[in-house]
């Protein structure tokens, strides 16, 4: 950051954004930040990066560091969202596909997405991210490890715990519907 005398890391914030903004967007989505708050959350990540860039030593991959920042920002946004009791349909409405099979199909799919959002929102963000990457984005465990900069063994253990948590939450919904 040539013009910024406080930056001693050698990174340029705008270049960092150019290279990693898509990763930050994706990560925050995976961690459960609402679509309506995504832009603000991304901005907050880069504010933190701007404030802390001089502390980045380069011993870790920059994406690993960014993931850590995004995780903290996501926790904060999720807490705020819970407090505001946002409409759980919000995320779904922005993702309704064009090729939906008629009004009943839309309603059915929308309800499934609402329930999915409810289950995912109840999950611990790091587990949620791994589950979304594996089950929804269909990334391999090796790809997940590379993207998040964590050991493959951690991906396996986190994924196993996430799948169990997911299954339990779905069971609870089903029990609730049957009651």
């Amino acid at each position, binding site marked *: 950051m040539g013009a910024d005398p406080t930056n001693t890391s050698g990174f340029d914030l705008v270049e960092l954004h150019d290279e990693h*903004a*898509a990763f930050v967007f994706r990560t925050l989505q995976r961690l459960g930040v609402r679509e309506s708050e995504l832009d603000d959350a*991304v901005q907050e990540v880069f*504010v933190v990066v701007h*404030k*802390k860039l001089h502390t980045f030593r380069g011993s870790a991959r920059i994406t690993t560091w960014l993931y850590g920042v995004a995780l903290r920002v996501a926790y904060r946004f999720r807490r705020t969202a819970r407090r505001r009791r946002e409409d759980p349909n919000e995320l779904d409405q922005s993702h309704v596909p064009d090729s939906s099979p008629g009004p009943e199909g839309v309603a059915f799919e929308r309800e499934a*997405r609402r329930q*999915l959002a409810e*289950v995912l929102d109840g999950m611990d963000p790091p587990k949620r991210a791994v589950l979304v990457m594996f089950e929804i984005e269909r990334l391999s465990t090796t790809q997940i490890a590379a993207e998040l900069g964590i050991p493959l063994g951690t991906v396996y253990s986190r994924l196993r715990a996430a799948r169990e948590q997911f299954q339990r939450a779905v069971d609870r919904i089903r029990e609730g519907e049957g009651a």
Partner: protein
Amino acid sequence: MNEPRRFLDDDDASPEVRRLLAAAERPGAPDPARLARSRRRVMALASLPMVGGSLVLVQKLALGALLGSVVGLGVEVGRRTLAPAPPVASVVVPSAQRPAVPKAPRPSVALQPTPELPAPEPPASAPSPSASQRTAASQPPVLPPSPSAGVTRELELLEAARRLVDADPARALGLLEQHARESPHGTLVIERELLVIQALARSGRLAEAKARAARFRAAHPESLYEERITRILAP
């Protein structure tokens, strides 16, 4: 280690789990327009003075600084003092006692919004001639709050203030006060404080700028911006 089978590929998985996952849509990559908007904000961010340190630490310190910041801002803009009623510790100086503020004509370039910035709205009612005589050059550009005020909104205000701080510091102070009202516990409180010091100094209100700087230094003794503050306050 074998790759686990995905729920959707596993016929033995719970039908409910499969139903929910089948309805999911993959998070898509952000579209180019969205990335471009984000980039513009980051460019604005990069131009702001930043104080190093963890966000948590910054926010804790900011709360301390805020007490002085909001209370002491006391910038008279237009016909009213925008800051809350100043208590004993206030450093508000009546306008009559202040050094003369250079009354630069409103530079039209300074009023032009950034690509993302809403255009300043005209005041709801025109000031009386007597008031306008005093405040013509210091009428603040009021930026309407965005639907989701957050760090993006904070950044808009501070970036607008930064652009004005040299050419029209009184208007910059108006924006900084707006930031103080909208985001009293915001992420960029400390950055605002630096700009306030700069705007006060540029306005010729050096005593106030020095008082603010002293508070800033006390709150942030390890600030990376000591040199910058010294430069701002240099005669």
